[in-house]
């Protein structure tokens, strides 16, 4: 009890110094957590992807469509349990700043492949019945204040004109990693509208952006991908099939340099606070040399004095770390709202919280290492003469 009191009183003896060190730690741990969360958010699509889903796209480029007729042939491939398809719509809601993803999908097969989009049955049926209907994720609906029955006008960029959808349902993600910031509508509505336009390109009318393929066994993903691509080899539209995760990661890799930079910065911040705190602990140990010498004279071992200093360093680091972690959560919520649909899943993961705590403890250990090593070897007589 007395030793605990000594530890606590020592840790906060210099109030200004302790406060400044704590502020530094809180900022560093918070920044570390936020930067990691941004990186996580970038990878969220890949993390949320299912191992039993494949994506087939044009081997040339994602911007090249595939024929609708491929669907039936893919369905016949051994190991395939379901096939759906989607087209990137790229519409604008009121202004470009309101960006969110919109996909024209085959509703029945698509929703069957994405059980993580939880939709009340009434709304599901209403959506399936209404060819001009659409569904959106909960976060997107909340952001724009949409309610079921509302009209959502989108200005087409890839498919010109004003497109109006009736909101028939709002889905919830099955967990926090599910994207709730997208709009899905009927592919047939898109296809038929284009078809009715004068001078419509028939190839474009029945074209598909990507096929989403459900497979029975995740382990067969590579084999089934090869089988699908083999089907269309030497055709006018060769395919490239990959797991949904690999497909999502191909987007992330476009900004890999930024992500590496963010990760580097998050580590540099921890190293900087390590140096700051090591300086604090070195000053502390130096000032208290006479006190440590007194403890040694009284019969306390060098190990005890080292533990006392290390515990003090760990205590400060732990307090700063916990405050930093506590601050990360509301700050991440704020940042998540600010970035909006740009990073649809923005949440502080359990791993990030754990890494923040470990980073704080590492700072405490490293900061104490040098002064602890010195006071483990100092001369008692010289220590007693020391004036702090």
């Amino acid at each position, binding site marked *: *009890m*007395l*030793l605990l*009191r*000594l530890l606590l*009183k*020592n840790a906060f*003896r210099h109030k200004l110094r302790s406060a400044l060190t704590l502020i530094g730690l809180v900022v560093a741990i918070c920044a570390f957590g936020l930067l990691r969360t941004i990186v996580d958010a970038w990878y969220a699509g890949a993390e949320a992807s299912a191992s039993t889903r494949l994506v087939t796209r044009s081997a040339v480029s994602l911007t090249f469509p595939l024929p609708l007729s491929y669907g039936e042939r893919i369905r016949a491939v051994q190991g395939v349990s379901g096939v759906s398809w989607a087209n990137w719509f790229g519409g604008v809601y009121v202004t470009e700043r309101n960006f969110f993803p919109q996909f024209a999908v085959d509703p029945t097969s698509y929703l069957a492949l994405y059980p993580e989009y939880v939709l009340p049955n009434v709304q599901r049926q209403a959506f399936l019945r209404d060819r001009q209907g659409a569904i959106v994720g909960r976060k997107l609906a909340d952001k724009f204040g949409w309610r079921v029955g509302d009209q959502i006008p989108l200005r087409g960029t890839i498919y010109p004109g004003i497109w109006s959808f009736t909101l028939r349902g709002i889905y919830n993600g099955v967990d926090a990693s599910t994207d709730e910031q997208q709009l899905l509508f009927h592919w047939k509505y898109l296809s038929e509208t284009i078809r009715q336009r004068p001078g419509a390109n028939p190839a474009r009318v029945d074209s598909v952006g990507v096929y989403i393929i459900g497979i029975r066994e995740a382990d067969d993903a590579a084999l089934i991908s090869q089988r699908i691509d083999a089907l269309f080899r030497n055709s006018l539209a060769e395919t490239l099939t990959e797991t949904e995760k690999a497909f999502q990661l191909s987007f992330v890799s476009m900004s890999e340099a930024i992500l590496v930079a963010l990760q580097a910065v998050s580590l540099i911040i921890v190293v900087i606070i390590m140096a700051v705190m090591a300086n604090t602990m070195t000053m502390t140990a130096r000032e208290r040399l*006479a*006190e440590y010498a*007194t*403890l*040694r*004279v*009284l*019969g*306390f*071992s*060098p190990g005890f004095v080292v533990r006392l200093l290390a515990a003090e360093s760990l205590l400060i680091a732990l307090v700063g770390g916990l405050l930093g972690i506590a601050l990360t959560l509301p700050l991440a919520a704020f940042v998540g709202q600010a970035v909006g649909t740009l990073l649809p899943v923005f949440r502080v993961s359990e791993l990030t919280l754990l890494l923040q705590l470990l980073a704080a403890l590492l700072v405490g250990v490293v900061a104490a290492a040098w002064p602890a090593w010195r006071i483990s070897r100092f001369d*008692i*007589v010289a220590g*007693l003469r020391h004036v702090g």
Partner: protein
Amino acid sequence: MNAGADALPPPLIRIRALSKAYQRGAQHIPVLQGVDLDVQRGEFIALMGPSGSGKSTLLNLIAGIDQPDGGCIEIDGIDIAGLSEGELADWRAANVGFIFQFYNLLPVLSAAENIELPLLLTDLTRRQRRQHVDAVLAMVRLSDRAGHYPNELSGGQQQRVAIARALVSDPQLIVADEPTGDLDRVTGGEVLSLLAELHRQLGKTIVMVTHDPRAAERAERLVHLEKGVLVAGTAFGH
């Protein structure tokens, strides 16, 4: 020089051919050279000498916080020069009480907590520790200041707390390095009276380093050091 007497029982402190030197760069500075000294159990001796004579070094060696280069120091039959650092720490905790010139109290702990520190190295329960602390606080007449922090106490009171801390684990040997060096004459006199009183009442062996002849007169015997050699011993016969 053997300051002991042949007819007396075995001394508590027996020092033979003790030498110690410091290395300052390339310079070899001898501090103690062939010191022989016996201190009887229950004796109160004062070590005097000019600055640099080696008296504090001798005190540190007796207290087991420094190691000699040669010779032997036996305390109660134990050659402490042969003990490891860990063994010396345990030995100090059990056998030596320290009184410093500048009190060396931990500023973040109260008087009672400072006094309790050495007892943390014993098997005493919290209640027993509390009882020991209360007892020594009463001895040094500071019971009413138990909860006060060092910066709330005068120099004399702080030194009395330090004396209580030195006594609380009931060591057989008390070493005091200039215990009145930071005090005015009146307060210093009070502290010395307290030391002498505790010596009489408790029969502790006290080795005190001092510059002050008046302080030295409170001891039973004065040992004089010059240039690392014992040059004279005076028995005051209190």
